[in-house]
Structures are given as structure tokens and as C-alpha cells.
């Protein structure tokens, strides 16, 4: 369970998270929508401790993320995160990209890491690309590789930060299909996204962020069907 309690975060003068309260249960798929600068991506990087917070508390399975005594490197094994930029490691083959962290962080044997990497690459549909370098992959393939790389750590949660935003339109579908597959397998996921159709289809709940505040959270039928927040109504009208 990820529990976010009254989290506040500023960059200089700009307060980007103004007291967020949110709980994500195991097995839940939560999507976060909202305009640029609404704080949704920042929240994800706060959850895995890449960004410090100014106030409040985030706990992951009972571990307080921003506590000084928390071993963030250990915590991050539980929290797979995939970013808008694919961040493929260009000097490693696709297989080596996926094997690196299990080898060095989890200290797995080569055989063990390789078996897991091949399994996860097959999972995201890259079974035939294991030996190529990322520069040979399309954006969609690179992003799927990044997903496999995160999955190879056997995380309990997956965080997706606008993973389709940097892709050509025709490549968005293959990545969303991968996310749908994960959701259908019961992976606990938080997806920040601009893909409304996708959000409506896979989410258990959808949260709408506006100017650092979670303005509304509801199951997708309710949030898209009968939005209450006036800003959300405006946002949905603009994106339809």
C-alpha cells in the first residue's frame, strides 16, 4: 500500500504540491490526469524518493520514504518507475539493459538475471530484440524495454510518468497495450497520463490534479461521466 499524507513540495517559490492525500491499495490501477505543471509527475518522483518533500509523509508498505533512516536504494527495488524519456543505456544491448540492475543491485547470477530479462522482454514483446543496441529500436520499443527493465526487479508497484508523451502517435498504442497487459495481470500501478481513453479503460480510480491540488478522485465512469469539479469539467471539455 502506498499512503500519501498531506504532502507538500515546492521548487523555490513555486509550490507544486499543496497538501496531497492519497492511498493506493495493492492491486489497484490509479491514473492521474491534469494539465502541465499540476504536480502529477512531481508526485511520482516524490514517491520513490528521487525528490525530497517539504511536509507530510509518504509510506510504502509501512516504510516512510523520506525518513533519514530509510534505505532508498532498497526501497526503490519495490518501486519500478518509467519516465517520459526512455533513458535506454546506449552502451548496453537490450538484454544487458534489463540485466544490469538485477545483477548489480540484487546480486543475481548471470544465468538468473538473463532468464528474468528474457522473460520480461518477451512479456513486453521484445523477445526478438535482445541482442541489439537501443539505438536500433524505435521509441515505442525503447519505452517497452524500459518497462521490462523496471519489471526485472520484480517491483511491487509500477509508476508510469507520461510514458507515451515523447512517442510518435503511431507508437503510442504498443506501449499502452503493454500497460493494459500489466494492469490485467494485477500489477499495482500509478500512471500519470494524457491518454484519456486509456485512463477510462484501465483505471480503478482516476485522480485529477490541478495547480498542486488533487481536485477530484473517483472511479472512471464517475470522473469522466459526471465530473463535479469545475476545473475538471473545463479540462475534459478541452481534451475531448
Amino acid at each position, binding site marked *: 500500500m502506498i499512503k500519501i499524507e498531506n504532502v507538500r513540495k515546492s521548487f523555490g517559490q513555486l509550490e507544486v504540491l499543496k497538501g496531497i492525500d492519497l492511498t493506493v491499495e495493492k492491486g489497484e490501477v490509479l491514473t492521474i490526469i491534469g494539465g502541465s505543471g499540476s504536480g502529477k509527475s512531481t508526485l511520482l518522483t516524490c514517491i520513490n524518493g*528521487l525528490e525530497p518533500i517539504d511536509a507530510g509523509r509518504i509510506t510504502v508498505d509501512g516504510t516512510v520514504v523520506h525518513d533519514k533512516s530509510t534505505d532508498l536504494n532498497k526501497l526503490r527495488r519495490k518501486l519500478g518507475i518509467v*519516465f517520459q524519456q526512455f533513458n535506454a543505456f*546506449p552502451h548496453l544491448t537490450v538484454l544487458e539493459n534489463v540485466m544490469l540492475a538485477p545483477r548489480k543491485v540484487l546480486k543475481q547470477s548471470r544465468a538468473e538475471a538473463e532468464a528474468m530479462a528474457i522473460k520480461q522482454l518477451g512479456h513486453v514483446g521484445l523477445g526478438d530484440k535482445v541482442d541489439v543496441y537501443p539505438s536500433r529500436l524505435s521509441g515505442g520499443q525503447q519505452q517497452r524495454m524500459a518497462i521490462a527493465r523496471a519489471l526485472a526487479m520484480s517491483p511491487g508497484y509500477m509508476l508510469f510518468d507520461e510514458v507515451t508523451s515523447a512517442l510518435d502517435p503511431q507508437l503510442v498504442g504498443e506501449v499502452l497495450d503493454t500497460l493494459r497487459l500489466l494492469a490485467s495481470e494485477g500489477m499495482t500501478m500509478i500512471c500519470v497520463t494524457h491518454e484519456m481513453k486509456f485512463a477510462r479503460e484501465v483505471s480503478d480510480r482516476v485522480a485529477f490534479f490541478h495547480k498542486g491540488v488533487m481536485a477530484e478522485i473517483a472511479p472512471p465512469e464517475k470522473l469522466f461521466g459526471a465530473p463535479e469539479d469545475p476545473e475538471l469539467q473545463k479540462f475534459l471539455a478541452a481534451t475531448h
Partner: protein
Amino acid sequence: MFNYTFQWNQALARLPQMLDGALVTMQIAILSMAIGVLLAILLTGCRLSGIRVLQGFAVTWVEIARNTPALFQIYMAHFGVASFGIHFSPFTSLLIGITFNNAGYLAENFRGALKAISDTQSRAGRSLGMTPVQAFRYIVLPQMLRIAYLPMTNQMVWAILMTSLGVTVGMNSDLYGVTQDLNALTFRTFELFAIAAVIFYVITKVIGLGARLLATRLFRY
């Protein structure tokens, strides 16, 4: 006006000695590069550490190495430290001087190379649970060395050529030192130094070629 008689045979007879000297020259250059690369990585780490003292140390090193003559650096490593009662052999002093110079230049190359690598690379490593050192070691460093590879081969060539400054601290077993001694014996000045120049040229060309071949093996991406 021009009545110098070339006597190549006399000079060529000394070729084996000069080739022995060339081996010493290569030995110094290779050692100074190997140690220089390691020191340069450390200096780069110091610069990125965010710790003022370490940053100051690295900046001072790089500034002196790049903005003073290599001759001065080698001189200091021999006669400079001798003022404080520290005495190195000419070989050691030359090695220290060139290594100091290499490390300074390479550290600056590495810093430039690092700027070309996006921060999101190590961020991606960190988010997979890697420590900062692991992310640097396995993700950033290999990419940095590739970007800095060409400047590194240049520095290697430079290191070979810098060994010729060793004569100023009494070095006489390297190619230039051997040539200088032979010249004092035989006075075949032009011939001997021309042969030395050709040997220098061949060494640096072979290094360039070797580096290119190595690159195709090292960097497949």
C-alpha cells in the same frame, strides 16, 4: 654554404640503441596514461563531489596542468621537490611530470564528456535501486570514456612526445635521451635526430591506428 656530408651508416648503426630507447619512451607514455586516466577519473569525481576542498584541489590541479609548460611540470617533479629533500630518479620524475599533465588534461576532457550525458541516465539507474557510485560506474563512466576516447588517444600521442623533455632532468634511457647521448659521441646530429623523429612519428601513427582498431572492438553501439 652547404658542405655537410651525410653519414647515414654511422647513425643507422646506432639504431638498436635508439629502439631500446623507444621502448622506454613507450613504457613511460603507457604508464603515465594508465595512471593519468585513473587520476583523471578521481579528479572528475572530486569536481562532482560538491565538497569544496575536493573541488578546489581538482580545479587547482587542472589549472596548473593545462596552463603551465609541461617542461615546468617535469622540472618541478625533479628539481622542485629536491628543494624539500625529496629526490626522484629522472625516470620517476619524468613519469610524475607527464602523469600530472595527462591527468589534468584528461580530467577536463572527462568533464566535457560528462556534460554530453543526460542527467536522466544516472537518474534512471538510481530509480532501479543503484547507489550513486554504481550508477556512475556502470552507466555514466562507460559512456564518458567513449566520448572522451578520441581526446584520450591525442593525449597518448602527447605523452609520447613529452618524454623528450626528460633530457632536462637527466633522463638518458628514453629515445630522446639516447639520441642526445649518441649525438655527443658521434656528432651525426642531423642523421640521429632525423632517425629519432621518424621513430617518434611511427610510434604515434601506430598508436593512432591501434586506437582506431581497438575502438571498433570496444564500442559496438
